[in-house]
């Protein structure tokens, strides 16, 4: 749930989603769910010349399993907090596996 929790804080920030088919889409993150499916608004394909058929698309829903990377806005990430959250997650996992 860490990533879900993390991406929830990025709602309304601009992110770039890199898909496994090398398509990169930049847009405003509108919502994310527990499968890390992503809804983007006001999208723009990074390499528009290569994918002209997407130039008319304004918003997309991306299935979480096809995402390779999410480029984050650095100033929207609280690294210290993220560390703590990671510790929590690890502790929870350790408790579960016990």
């Amino acid at each position: 749930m860490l990533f879900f929790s993390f991406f929830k804080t990025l709602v309304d920030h601009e992110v770039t989603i890199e898909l496994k088919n090398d398509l990169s889409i930049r847009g405003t993150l509108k919502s994310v769910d527990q499968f890390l499916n992503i809804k983007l608004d006001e999208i723009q394909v990074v390499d528009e010349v290569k994918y002209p058929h997407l130039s008319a698309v304004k918003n997309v829903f991306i299935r979480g399993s096809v995402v390779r990377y999410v480029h984050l806005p650095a100033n929207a990430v609280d690294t210290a907090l993220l560390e703590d959250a990671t510790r929590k997650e690890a502790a929870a996992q350790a408790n579960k596996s016990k």
Partner: protein
Amino acid sequence: MSFFGFDTTLSRDRAAHAPHPRQAPGFSQQRDAFAGLSGNSNEKANDDDGYDFEDTYDGLGEQLDEGDDEFNDETFGGGSSAAPGKDFDFFGSTAKVANAINEEQLLYARGPKKPTQAAPPSYNQDRQPKASSYAAATKPKPQPVPKHQVPTEIPELKPEMSLWATTSPEATPAKNLSAHAAVHYLHIENQLQDPPPPQPNFSQPAPTTRKYKSLEEVEAEILAKKQAKLAAAQQPPPSQPQPQLPPPNQLNQQDGWPGRPVQGFPQHPQLQMQPPLQQLELPYPPRGMPPPQQNQRPPQNDRTPEHLQRGPIPQPGPGGQLPFPQMPANPQFQGNNMPFPMGIIPPQGPQGPQPPFVGIPPMQPQIMQMTEEERIKFLEEESKRLKRNHKIAQLSRYNGLMTPWDKNFITRIQLQQLVSVNEDSFNEDFYYQVYMAIRARNNPQQPLNQFAQTYLGQQGARGGRARRQDNHLLRMQQQVQRAVAAAKARPKASQIVLEGSLGKISFGNVKTPKPLLSIKKQDTSGVTESGQKPTHAFAGIDRRSILAAAEDIYRCLLDLDSHERKHPGPSLTGQQPDSNTIQWFEARDALIAKLWRSMRIMEPIKEEPNALHPFIAILSVKKAKEAIPRVFRYIDLQQRITILTMITISLDQVDVIKDGRYPAETLSLSNETKKKIEGFSQYVLPPLLSYVGDAQLDVITGLLGILLDRVNVLLLSQTQIGLAFLTMFTSRAEIIKQAGQADDQGVLKWTQTYDRLFEILEDHLLDIFPPHGAQVDDMYVWQFLASMAVGANMSQQQKMVSAVKDRVNENVQASKTLPQEMGQHKLANTNLFLRALGLDIDLLLS
């Protein structure tokens, strides 16, 4: 009945009644519920004559044979010698003849002395079938004697619909006449003679001795009225009613029933059928009678609306529970509605007027009879009802669009949403929750309420909603929480072994993916032991164990944080903390102790020269440095001074000092060291500084003394962090001294310690500067010099000035060549020191 062959009843009745006057009070009054008026009047006539024993005695007693008693035993059973016995069943024997006794009692009570021979045969014939029809059950053997016929009807005085209904209209006149002939009642005659005497509308208790009418009389009256009414029906009703009050004695005889105020129905004089109706209805106490004035209205005007009125009113009670005053006022109109008025009215008396429901639309008459105000109200309600129906109809248009499955699906989604906000949110959704909380706290524009809601969960958007809604949500969340907890408590197998199969089937879900490899952990106990007993596990200072130790600290910190969130709430001062609060504080203390242990600060300092204290070793990693401010939030003063002391006495071992000196022939430190120094001054120094800012002079003196004793101060002075420590101590001491917060002895001790420090440093003041040409900010050096200069005496100040004079001039010269901003900065730094001496850089510049 006559056991001995003679008419016992007759003789006994005579014997008993002859001497007793019927009029005498207290004898038969009680039982004489419907004493026949006719009998009464007959009796009166007889009483006047008086009874003679000889006249009435038939001489049967003389025929008795006083002898011949020998067969009495045979007749009555039992020998004469046998005692009667004590177990005689009086009740049982009596019960056998109870019927007969009752009957005889009644006969006795109302039986006239002489048979009513005056009754014409037509009367008897008329009565006979009726008597057998409804009194036969209780009266097994009505004797054919005429005088017994009248009383037989009395015990059962229940109006029977069938009985009355079968009464043919043709028969009634004859009966009426005959009944009338039997009784000598003045008022009846009057009524017959002059048809429209007005009925009294008011009640008056009757003072007469005879108060009850017999049923026959009642009937007789009814019939008389009916006849009169039939006669009246032929005539047109008079347009103007002329109510006349009859003479009082007439009233009494006609209507006066004792103890029962007769409320006259409003009547119209031309309708003579009224009195019997009244009397039949009267057993029910009249309620809410309309005022008598009401009936002064002409009947023609009333008739039509009243017929209509009666339509929608369901089952009004007898005599006046009706909402409208004119309703009960005219029973005669109801009578007109009936096909057989006389036959039907009597049973209706007790039941109240029956609404006919004859083809009248229910709404219309209601509106018609309503007042203006009521009508408006009624219409309003009606429109409201219609509106609601319309709304329901509109909503129900979409009924059944969603299947149960759809609804379940939606419910599941909603519940999921709720679950994500539940108690686990700080474990599973930690980042989001805390991030939002921090952001809300850093955003002062956000209203506090919004902040609280954001902090509590995702409901930040629904700020305006009512509190009730939140309560529902809260309750729902709690329920879901319980359900989830129960589901989690159930042991979940990640694989199953089907019976008879050779392998296992393993499965997973989103949270616990299907394990492709199942590897047992070899030794988990060793890892946990290192956490619990750090003394032994921390023998070697390798990076791995240092990092693990740092993680230990963080684990304790996170536990403390989450415990802090469960704070039971601020307890009001002066109140005893409740058990929850006490428990919470106990748990908190335990957690803090754990945190303290995890920092390993109390481990003994080893005497070997190169032995590194565990705490200092841990402090070498950045994340441990970052933890220090958070640790300082929880530990108390004693623990803070322990940390400060520990760091102070091990300063030369701290990596930022050890590596902080500029190596020979180099102008800059390594990047790693730079970062460490930065981290140390960013995370570790501020909490220490804040503590020192509150420390007393003796603490400062002691710390500086230890520093001078144990640490190579010269080495220290050549590093940024070392100088920062020295600056910290000296400046704090100066502040205390100047504020006059310390006694003379403390000041004296401090001066001695300061002198020692100055002695060590006075010949190496130039060495504390970073090497020439190093592109670093040397402000910390000037700060140190300034703090030293403030506390120095005159000679010490002179020494300092002469030592750093070149450096000051150098800075002044350099500031002129450098860009203005950097130059100003250099000058400002230098000026810190000059100001401390009481000088100013402007003197040098000018």
